[in-house]
């Protein structure tokens, strides 16, 4: 399919999804036009809504990049959720226990999170390359281990804030919020008091995570497109046997690919901790950042650059859609079904495309045997 064509198909799917979402809202007894109006205004109605949309989209853009990267190299990174959790745990630990100057502290904490998550995902890679264990199975299991590890770490008095079910907050030096210190200082407050637009824009926990997401998207795109490493990784993804024949070390590449994907998801967890939540809490269930990242990657057709608009779309839908709760009284279930069907339709053509691609790809590979 030509590039232009692809874009039009995606737009059409989004439209189709909105129509189906409207039908579901209508059947449930809500005025779909009013609902979409509320959603639209809930996303664009004020500078702070736009900020919130960006804040909400940031982690799923980054996990989306992680999934897209792994997919390009022939791996299904369903473990983004667990890698996200590991990244957030270690970023929190580094952000709370290390004593470093501002900026550097934040960067170090992100790197620590990325490294930990990279090693975590590396386990999956090693299991696959050494023992042929399917990455899907092992990474799903590791998701749960990560979740319980998160809760286990919170049993340590060193990390657990007394009388709460969360960790200590990361130190101010580790926070990556945009103008975070200035915002709450006297001078900042006085300045913002007179500047409504800026005040609203900065009111949500805006952070550098979004810039990191954009940089990562470009970096991953560049690695895949213009470097030897990217070429090798892609070759392994396209056709393992041919790649091996061409002299590429498949086993090493699988591990490297998983580690990079894991590190990217870990960065998502780190930016969320350092920029938004500033702590980690006991998790009863997955928060869905990794799984939503998969949806984002699907919408983006596994193109790292396209994960940015795809993530913004997904984040906007869930943020604006959530407002239907109190503004028109729609229960979350109806909203989720409507948003779900939109995402479903958006992802659908890509889904078929991917099915087709994998099918023909494997077939060719098999014929080679």
């Amino acid at each position, binding site marked *: 399919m030509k590039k232009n064509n692809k874009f039009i198909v995606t737009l059409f799917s989004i439209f189709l999804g909105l129509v189906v979402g409207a039908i579901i809202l209508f059947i449930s007894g809500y005025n779909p036009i009013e609902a979409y109006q509320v959603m639209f205004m809930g996303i664009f109605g004020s500078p702070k809504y736009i900020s919130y949309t960006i804040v909400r989209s940031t982690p799923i853009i980054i996990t989306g990049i992680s999934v897209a990267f792994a997919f390009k190299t022939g791996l299904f990174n369903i473990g983004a959720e667990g890698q996200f959790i590991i990244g957030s745990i270690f970023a929190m630990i580094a952000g709370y226990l290390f004593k470093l100057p501002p900026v550097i502290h934040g960067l170090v904490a992100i790197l620590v999170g990325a490294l930990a998550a990279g090693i975590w995902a590396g386990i999956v890679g090693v299991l696959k390359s050494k023992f042929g264990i399917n990455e899907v199975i092992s990474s799903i299991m590791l998701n749960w281990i990560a979740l319980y590890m998160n809760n286990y770490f919170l049993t340590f008095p060193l990390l657990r804030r007394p009388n709460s079910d969360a960790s200590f907050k990361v130190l101010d030096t580790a926070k990556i919020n945009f103008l975070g210190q200035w915002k709450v200082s006297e001078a900042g407050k006085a300045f913002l008091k007179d500047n409504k637009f800026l005040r609203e824009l900065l009111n949500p926990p805006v952070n550098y995570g979004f810039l990191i997401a954009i940089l990562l998207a470009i970096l991953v795109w560049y690695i895949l497109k213009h470097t030897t490493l990217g070429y090798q990784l892609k070759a392994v993804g396209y056709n393992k046997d041919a790649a091996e024949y061409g002299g590429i070390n498949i086993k090493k590449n699988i591990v490297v690919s998983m580690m990079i994907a894991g590190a990217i998801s870990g960065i998502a967890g780190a930016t969320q901790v350092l920029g938004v939540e500033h702590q980690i809490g006991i998790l*009863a269930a997955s928060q869905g950042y990794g799984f939503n990242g998969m949806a984002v990657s699907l919408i983006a057709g596994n193109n790292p650059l396209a994960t940015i608009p795809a993530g913004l779309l997904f984040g906007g839908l869930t943020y604006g859609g959530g407002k239907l*709760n109190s503004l028109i009284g729609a229960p979350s279930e109806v909203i989720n079904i409507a948003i*779900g069907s939109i995402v479903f339709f958006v992802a659908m053509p890509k889904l078929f495309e991917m099915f087709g691609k994998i099918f023909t790809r494997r077939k060719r590979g098999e014929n080679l045997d």
Partner: protein
Amino acid sequence: MKRKLLALSLVLALVLSFALTGCKPTEKAPTDDNNVTNEDTNTPDDNDAEATDIKVGMVTDEGGVNDQSFNQSAWEGLEQAQQELGVTAKYQESHQEADYAPNFETLLDAGNDLIWGIGYKLADAALAAAEANPDTKYGIIDSAYGDDTPENMVGVLFKAEQPSFLVGYIAGRMTETNKIGFVGGIEGEVIGSFDYGFQAGVQYAAKELGKEITVLSQYADSFSDAAKGKSIATNMYQQGMDVVFHAAGGVGDGVIEAAKEQNKWVIGVDRDQSDMAPDNVLTSAMKRVDIGVYNIVKALKDGNFPGGTTVTYGLADNGAVDIAPTSDKHVPADILTKVEEIKQDIINGKIEVPVNQDTYDVFVEGLK
């Protein structure tokens, strides 16, 4: 090839189901509402309630508004206020911790006069919102800021240890195996007060009977995982514990289910849970969040919003915390008479119910 395809389609099924719905814990169908709505809220809209233009909103935690527990109870309180006081009530559900702050903002922008945060998990976000918006009133359940409470904010606390002590006493009197279990949600100050209050009640009964009773407490690390609650409780019953008390929200549904299967005693929490297993629910430690919410909304309407303070509900405040009214079904009358006496002792301050490990140790020491 076929295996690959199968794996892929399984993965896709997983991706879609998680991606679209996985971000929130399981929720009960809204039809369950009627089971738990208390009598007052069942009365249809009586139109005599004079309409006011007071708008009240609440932010739930991740449990959602149909959690069969305190979020639901809070919403019932608001619904009652809607019918009887003529205020307008709305709720906004949170799916992740990162939702708290934006949800408070959404309700603020919708022009609500009073915004509730339901549960201690929202304490930080609620405080930040209250400090940033001094013209709007805020309320928080299960949390307090003491003297730091802003003028536009009220904290509502429940002395959960008091009804827990009473049901603990009942459990201690009823057990035949002298082994009792406690299933908690997530460890913390609030659930701890249930835990230690309960254990203290059991020890109080043990001393009275002159025997030794052990209490095992276990946490599910969740407020929604009913399957986990069921497996923990089943385990407890099989180890010979014949009464289990839970303070674990949705996890408790599984605990009660296990009691039904094993035909053992279980003690409910937050509301009278007798309807869930009439033959097995011995009693319930009630914590009526709805009463707390309703009272504050009423105070706001009457123009005496208790801003800057913390309102605490104990046994002395008619019915906000208590044991379930259906307790007489299974609990013998002589025990209930004794419970009444203990209740008076707690109200008079003769019995200091412990709320954490330290006060519990002191309490047990005092029993000797």
